[in-house]
């Protein structure tokens, strides 16, 4: 345990010492987990790192998940350097896959302050530049990494730059300890617990705006986040709340169970035609539900298509599934455009 913590400290110190400008290298791993680890632990070195026992606890708690990355990183010292740059790059790439850089990027930059607020004590430039990127690359991060696309941009022209926006993410995590729900409900803010109605504590936090269902077994469901990173961040926050109440909460098996996205094709769609030609996939009962329910096989996504042109996509475990599903459906919808 002690060794793991010293490793973590070492790594974090190295990360904190960097400025965030680095030559791009090929990405080694998916950006999601390392980002998050970096963000949350990066704040710790800024506060009284070594003397804070709680922080050590947190590190120990998270090490069970994050350690798998450490050996890879620590074997090659210089990998730490471009890590941030490559992370930026992968974010860039995954974004550019689905769309061309557009003004909406800059608009989305306004999301980043929400992430950086709780951590903006010291090293604002450092944390800001890194924390801005997990959201969506805003205008600040674009000059950071020269974009070398890793995968070919796929059929952007088809979708005319429309990208589904994520509306809700449902994730689960195992805190791996038995919890006293009554105690949690009594001591935590924004917690409700009604054992007669439902055997879980319902907790809410404002940033990121989410709701969590915490069960006595230690399992937790987190809903309401608008991105994968936010969902993970929120889950961590709930875990920390539980920890602060004295439970040995850990953070195991974080998994995104469902992602919901929505977008607007901006033209009315003739659903009667669609349901007739795609009978095996669609059901349309307007007297029951105003939208057509389209069950796409590959990827396995359910789309709700409305006459107005709004499309809701659900059932995804990954963002790429939502984008892919939309790319598949867009030409079909264009065929049923109501003039």
């Amino acid at each position, binding site marked *: 345990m002690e060794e793991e913590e010293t490793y973590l400290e070492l790594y974090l110190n190295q990360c904190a010492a960097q400025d965030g400008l680095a030559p791009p290298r090929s990405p080694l791993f998916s950006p999601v987990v390392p980002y998050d680890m970096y963000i949350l632990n990066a704040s710790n070195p800024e506060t009284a790192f070594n003397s804070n026992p709680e922080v050590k606890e947190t590190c120990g708690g998270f090490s069970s998940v994050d350690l798998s990355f450490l050996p890879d990183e620590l074997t090659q010292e210089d990998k730490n350097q471009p890590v941030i740059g490559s992370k930026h790059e992968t974010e860039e790439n995954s974004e550019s896959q689905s769309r061309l850089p557009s003004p909406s990027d800059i608009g989305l930059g306004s999301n980043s302050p929400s992430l950086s607020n709780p951590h903006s004590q010291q090293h604002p430039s450092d944390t800001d530049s890194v924390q801005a990127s997990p959201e969506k690359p805003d205008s600040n991060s674009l000059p950071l990494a020269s974009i070398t696309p890793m995968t070919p941009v796929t059929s952007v022209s088809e979708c005319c730059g429309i990208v589904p926006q994520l509306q809700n993410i449902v994730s689960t995590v195992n805190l791996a300890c038995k919890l006293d729900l009554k105690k949690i409900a009594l001591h935590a803010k924004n917690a409700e617990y009604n054992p007669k109605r*439902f055997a*879980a504590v319902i907790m809410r936090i404002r940033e990121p705006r989410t709701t969590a*269902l915490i069960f006595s077994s230690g399992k937790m469901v987190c809903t309401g986040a608008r991105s994968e990173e936010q969902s993970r961040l929120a889950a961590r926050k709930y875990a920390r709340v539980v920890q602060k109440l004295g439970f040995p909460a850990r953070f195991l098996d974080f998994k995104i169970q469902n992602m919901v996205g929505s977008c607007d094709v901006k033209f009315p769609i003739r659903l009667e035609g669609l349901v007739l030609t795609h009978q095996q996939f669609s*059901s349309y009962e307007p007297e*029951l539900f105003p939208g057509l329910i389209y069950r796409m096989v590959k990827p396995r996504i*359910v789309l709700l298509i409305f006459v107005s042109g709004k499309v809701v996509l*659900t*059932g995804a475990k990954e963002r790429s599934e939502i984008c892919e599903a939309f790319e598949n459906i867009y030409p079909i919808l264009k065929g049923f455009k109501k003039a």
Partner: protein
Amino acid sequence: MHTHCIYLLKRYSLGDARRPLHETAVLVEDVVHTQLINLLQQAAEVSQLRGARVITPEDLLFLMRKDKKKLRRLLKYMFIRDYKSKIVKGIDEDDLLEDKLSGSNNANKRQKIAQDFLNSIDQTGELLAMFEDDEIDEVKQERMERAERQTRIMDSAQYAEFCESRQLSFSKKASKFRDWLDCSSMEIKPNVVAMEILAYLAYETVAQLVDLALLVRQDMVTKAGDPFSHAISATFIQYHNSAESTAACGVEAHGNAIQPCHIREAIRRYSHKIGPLSPFTNAYRRNGTAFLAC
């Protein structure tokens, strides 16, 4: 009153002209009302036989057991309803919480009810076979094709109107529907799922009436000397009729609306069973009126 609802249902969404006749709507309402009341009474009898205190969906399914096609359509409807609640729940987190809080496992509840019940009454295995049956529902297909043809020639304003009228149903104003059926005067009342089914059956009755009335009307429009005029599908003729009427609208507003006489003739033909197996092919009869929806 429900005349308004029926009026809007008929118009358009189920195949009638854009402005259906008021008399037709009143007549259709009357027919649907009578049929539903009769159905409700028979369902009450069935549940009394069981010694139950509420009318459950099982009672209604029991009444429908004879007509496989209509039963299958009802089952499909119930499944879609389940499926839709499942999906909508995943999207809206409030719904998700609501569902969790309500405790019981609500997923696929209608499907479970149907499956369990049919399992219990099925002697020959043919009812359960319906769950796996993937045959195309011809009536549904015809309705879809008709709607598709209608919508193809509409402009976006008309289409928006059409879609709105399609979303009307008897299940939207549940309390009004209950009052209309005068459930409060009954000893045994239907439960929530049973009410859903009844609302669906009311909708189906109107749909059936419109289908049949269109057929009747087609029969009446016979071209002299054309031996095959009876073989042309109703939707085809209606398509041509409506294509002409949109060109000369206003004056022709009632031109191709369904008349009460069409409805009456449709009911007469439906009740008049021909053939040796006729008593066995349809569900409960009472007072000589066959049920259109089951």
